[in-house]
């Protein structure tokens, strides 16, 4: 190897190395702080007995709850949950779009614009679900509608963030081509951005849908009538058979949804 080559060898830029080290040290310090004061782990004697009872309960689901002529049973509750989740997700998927484009770094010229968008999304996310639910209870009363609104508005924060990042991650070449041909922003979005981010949009929306199905807490609070309240009651009353059947119902429903949505996604992408 010739000497000149070695001498001309570029070095990793010093500035970047300093930055990397700073970040590394900061991270190490954070973890040190987090680990110090963590108590020891000790397994309780009662563990075996209690867990056995819970597991055996879960594995002996209360089949009687599946259907009840009164109409307050697993199947009805799941259907109601499903309906609420569909609408909640629909609302948030629509509402989050402007926020997502607002927050995406590559959609605006100035960084402060997208930063402002990100701030708004953070604020929405930080607003507790519980308070959101109370607000809507005050405006439309207890029931599924309040649940839909609470789910819908609350998930704007999450979906907006994830969508925004999907937009930031896309290949910008195609959008450039549209810009070059004099397309306006909307046309550029429609022809170059949307086709690229569509798969991500769909999968995030479906993921959010799944979360909504599982949002027992929020649905319980507003008395939405879905599976939320029964699940929480059963858990509080340590009625594991009932918990078992409800979880089974949710798992089956989520799996079926996953399957259906998977094939829809394949079709649309």
């Amino acid at each position, binding site marked *: 190897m010739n000497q000149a080559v070695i001498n001309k060898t570029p070095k990793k830029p010093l500035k970047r190395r300093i930055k990397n080290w700073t970040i590394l040290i900061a991270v190490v310090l954070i973890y040190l702080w987090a680990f110090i004061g963590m*108590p020891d782990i000790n397994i309780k004697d009662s563990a075996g007995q*209690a867990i056995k009872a819970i597991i055996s309960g879960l594995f002996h689901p209360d089949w009687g709850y599946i259907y009840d002529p009164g109409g307050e049973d697993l199947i009805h509750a799941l259907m109601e949950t499903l309906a609420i989740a569909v609408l909640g997700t629909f609302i948030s998927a629509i509402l989050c779009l402007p926020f997502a484009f607002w927050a995406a770094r590559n959609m605006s010229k100035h960084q402060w614009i997208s930063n402002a968008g990100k701030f708004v999304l*953070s604020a929405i996310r930080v607003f*507790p679900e519980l*308070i959101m639910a109370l607000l809507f209870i*005050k405006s439309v009363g207890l029931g599924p509608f309040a649940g839909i609104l609470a789910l819908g508005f609350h998930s704007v924060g999450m979906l907006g963030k994830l969508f925004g990042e999907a937009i930031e991650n896309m290949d910008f070449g195609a959008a450039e081509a549209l810009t070059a041909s004099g397309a306006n922003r909307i046309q550029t979005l429609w022809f170059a951005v949307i086709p690229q981010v569509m798969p991500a949009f769909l999968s995030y929306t479906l993921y959010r849908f799944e979360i909504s199905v*599982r949002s027992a*807490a929020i649905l319980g609070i507003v008395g939405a009538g879905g599976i939320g309240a029964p699940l929480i009651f059963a*858990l509080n009353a340590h009625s594991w058979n009932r918990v078992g059947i409800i*979880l089974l119902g949710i798992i089956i429903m989520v799996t079926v949804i996953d399957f259906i949505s998977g094939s829809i996604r394949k079709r649309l992408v």
Partner: protein
Amino acid sequence: MIRNFLTFVFVIILIWGSAIKTGVSFSSFVRGLPNMWTLIAEMFPPNWHYFSYITKPMLETIRMAVLGTTAGGVAAIPFALFSSRNVVRMPMIYYPARFMMNLIRTIPELLLAALFVPILGIGEIPGILAIAVFSFGIIAKLAYESVEAIDTGPLEAMTAVGANKIQWIFFGVVPQVTAQFMSYFLYSFEINIRSAAILGYVGAGGIGLYLNNTLSFFQYDRVLTIIIYTLVVVIVIDFISNKIREKLL
């Protein structure tokens, strides 16, 4: 074309049917809107005095979230990879991996608490573990989807140089998803801080408990204080995470 159309119709019917079933009424929403303001008005002004009071639980929450999210995030990595069709090409592996992932996501927080308390007692350890399980669900799912969406060109290149599977992943997959993984990790961290209710269930304290307590006293001004505090923390996390993402990658 026709298929797309049918899918579209299916979605519309689904939404419409759901609206009927749940009694959605736009007019009642608009009519009820003013009622919301009475509650919002009760939140203002925030109780500034309360800030100093919640610093300790906030720090505790952050501490547990750091550990729990890390544990969950690390555990999520192999699952995300094993679930991805373009990484392991064997349905024998990716279907079970995905199923496990879905199953763990379905466990409600309350059930987690019910399982952990008898095993580990109350306090930080079950709290951290519960956060870990919860974060695992989120991170594994999101990471797996971004792994499935990566550009296959570099993968091909790694195949062509004769890299073994692990090297192939490390040089072809990892650099492409690190940024996204980091962002999911930090997102999950953020969720753990702001909705740390699970910590309350296992007697680990934390900010979620304070939110519940102030709520049960109807002290909405303190609720707002907690919200603002959390927002500040989240913004700081966001800022740091953006810096890390920009500089490190």
